[in-house]
């Protein structure tokens, strides 16, 4: 009996990825079991699933035989508080990482998302301004390659330049280079005190926050058609320091200081269900206002980090208009040095548009994929340029 026979069961009705049903589902509980499973599933097209919070984002797989579910591959292996690091299995829910005593993995991800999925998707939330993304906080990683070999990169120390930094390569690779089974993260102390500053203000005012000595941890924007645009700032630190800075910012933005974030904070600007159009938009800081106004004029709600130039936009959009909206936003994003990636779109248009858009270095990316996954079994067709 192979590990595939041992572990795989027939797929159920929910075992679907972006509209494509799978045949089989397997949930390995250890790195070794996952390696045996992958080695035994040589001819199968595989998609990996963590919490499933993002599994339908991106183009559908060209083929799908097996879903590898990571939720049994879970648990915090080590939390070395004095070294500000933690080692976790990939399927560990983010909820568990949100609750580490006295310390935090400073990634904004939904409670049901997994650590591995958060790395594989390199998603980010408001606090990326201060703490960076999974890319910056991941210091070590274990991956099972498509040929079943177990490989590690990085380690348990923050400073490490021995060999290539492959953790970066796997971050955001959307399960196309292998199965992430374990991650080592850098942690941060939980801040002593936090406050928010909210203001009705145009996106151009974000620059004032950045040039003031506010040391904001997050600087978020919210703009929707027919409503006044808002800015919200998260300030963290010691109580006196935070009160001082928040007061100064409230004066600067003509806003108010509050204990709680605005209701739209860290929530995607698209409806949770249905076939909405959802995009990730990036641009230079000075380009954020034009990205926001173009998206709002196209009928989308925009939300995201005005301090780093990474925004999300979405709306229920008429499928017939989708391609045009994407084209307009892509043009503006290009002008401001960024990109417009389509995360979700109505099924009828997914096949008609290039969801990822143009990407520099695509030829090199194909060469990397060919080396790691010569048979293109892992998430075939889901990544940039049809990788």
């Amino acid at each position, binding site marked *: 009996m192979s590990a595939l026979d041992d572990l795989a069961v027939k797929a159920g009705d929910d075992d679907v990825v972006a509209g494509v049903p799978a045949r089989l589902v397997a949930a390995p509980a250890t790195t070794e079991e996952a390696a045996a499973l992958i080695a035994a599933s040589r001819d199968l097209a595989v998609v990996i699933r963590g919490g499933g919070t993002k599994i339908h984002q991106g183009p559908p797989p060209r083929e799908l035989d097996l879903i590898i579910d990571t939720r049994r591959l879970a648990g915090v292996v080590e939390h*070395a*508080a*004095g*070294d*500000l690091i933690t080692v976790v299995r990939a399927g560990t829910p983010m909820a568990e990482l949100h609750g580490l005593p*006295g310390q935090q993995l400073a990634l904004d991800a939904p409670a049901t998302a997994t650590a591995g999925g958060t790395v594989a998707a*390199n998603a980010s939330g408001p606090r990326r301004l201060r703490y*960076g*993304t999974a*890319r*910056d906080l991941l210091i070590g990683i274990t991956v099972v*390659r498509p040929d079943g*070999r*177990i*490989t*590690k*990169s990085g380690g*348990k*120390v*923050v*400073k*490490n*330049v*021995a*060999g*290539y*930094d*492959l953790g*970066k*390569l796997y971050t955001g690779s959307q399960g196309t280079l292998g199965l992430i089974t374990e991650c080592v993260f850098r942690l941060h*102390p939980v*801040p002593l005190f936090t406050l928010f500053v909210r203001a009705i203000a145009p996106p151009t005012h974000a*620059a004032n926050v950045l040039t003031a*000595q506010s*040391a904001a941890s997050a600087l978020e924007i919210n703009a929707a058609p027919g409503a006044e645009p808002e800015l919200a700032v998260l300030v963290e*630190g*010691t109580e*006196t*320091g935070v009160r*001082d*800075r928040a007061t100064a910012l409230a004066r600067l933005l003509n806003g108010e200081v509050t204990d709680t974030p605005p209701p739209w904070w860290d929530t995607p600007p698209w409806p949770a269900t249905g076939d909405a159009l959802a995009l990730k938009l*990036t*641009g*230079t*800081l*000075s380009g954020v206002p034009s990205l926001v106004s173009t998206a709002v004029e196209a009928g989308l709600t925009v939300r995201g980090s005005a301090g780093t130039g*990474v925004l999300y936009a979405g709306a229920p959009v008429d499928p017939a208009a989708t391609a045009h909206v994407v084209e307009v936003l892509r043009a503006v994003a290009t002008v401001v040095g*960024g990109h417009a*990636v389509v995360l979700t779109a109505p099924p009828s248009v997914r096949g008609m548009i290039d969801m*990822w858009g143009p*990407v*520099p*270095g695509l*030829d*090199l*990316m194909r060469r*990397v994929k060919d*080396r790691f996954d010569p048979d293109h079994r892992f998430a075939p067709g889901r990544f*940039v*340029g049809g990788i």
Partner: protein
Amino acid sequence: MTLLSRLQAELAPDQLITDRQRLRTYECDGLSHYRVVPALVVLPRTAAQVAAVVRACAEERVPFVARGSGTGLSGGALPHADGVLIVTSQLRDILEVRPADERAVVQPGVINLQVTQAATPHGYYYAPDPSSQQICSIGGNVAENSGGAHCLKYGFTTNHVTGLQVVTPDGDLVRLGGATPDTPGYDLLGAFVGSEGTLGVATEVTVKLTRLPETVRTLLAAFTGTDQAGAATSAIIAAGVVPAAIEMMDALSIEAAESAVSCGYPAGAGAVLIVELDGPAAEVAAQFDEVSRLCAENGAFETRVAADDTERQLIWRGRKSAFAAVGRISPDYIVQDGVIPRTALPTVLRRINEVAAEHGVRVANVFHAGDGNLHPLVLFDDDVPGEAERAETVSGAILDLCIEHGGSITGEHGVGVDKARYMPRMFTDDDLDTMQLVRCAFDPDGIANPGKVFPTPRLCGERPGHHRGAHPLQEAGVAEVF
């Protein structure tokens, strides 16, 4: 057509060095006990010229090595005897400074400190600050993923570079990343940073600029020994304070610094900590009190606070001169670079001293305590028979200690030629093989800085585990093309 005549067609005569005497200038980097005279040195002035040189090398299967300022301490820029050395010293323009976007775009030969100097009038600076910042190049920083005293809080080069233009080993000019973060696709930029010149040559670098902090405050705390200083370091971190820097010097390095620059550190100190805090004034004030208290609680017998910028410079001068200063107390020394988890500091420092004593050599410790990045200086006298070998043994044993404690064989100086043989102690064959997958995607013929980082690279396309040994291209020798 030979490679030389091809390059003569691409470059002006003063951009090509073939004279043996002048080639010698480039025979080593900061690690001077490895020396190789390159077959040819080129000094390109544009990215297109770099691409033309590399394309010619690719077509003739001639190895090439990039070189910035040559300050590397792992032999990364050691030339290849039969290869071309591509020196970036004529690629020194700061192309753009865009404070509103918090970005600058620079050529690879630009000196690290010059980026900060260009940004400061706008209220910004470039955060990664290796001690060599007055001479090392941004291209070299990218290749080594360099850090500095302030990376405890601000991160390393990899956290501050958003875009690169690179010439791949087949001579293509490619953009990786850009001015904005999260470029879709594989993070090849992240893989390139720290690849030590083995994936191609960086020809343009887009860096993040960081807002100058409102306040900077620096404190010097003197302890009787490294155990207490190590405990104070852990206590500061555990208290939730993230200083901009925590640096430690032990008795021997203090002695060296005193003899070189008379920095006037407290008499009788067995260890000092330099703690720097930066940020909004009120935050810094509160944290400063906390740090002072924690140092005192952990045995600091004297703490000094820099009252002004001059005093701050004086505190740092001792630290920054320590490397060069050990030359005054020892004729020869090896600079080691390893990392351990911060909590292992007291144990590992004690073990280092034991190992040194066993072998009859002295070790001076001056390092980035907040990151657990050790820089033991193993002192010896080459004129004493056997002492160099004993120093070498101690130096290697220190790396084993780092690996044993879950750390790394290098925190900032890189693997280069110097530590390639230690890579299998830290990584399995499968781990190294996976790095080779990336190498082969970029450089199937293995002509970009061969012989560095990896102990025995296999040929691309081979199954791992077979055909170990020298690269056939190296064995074949390609000198005759000149």
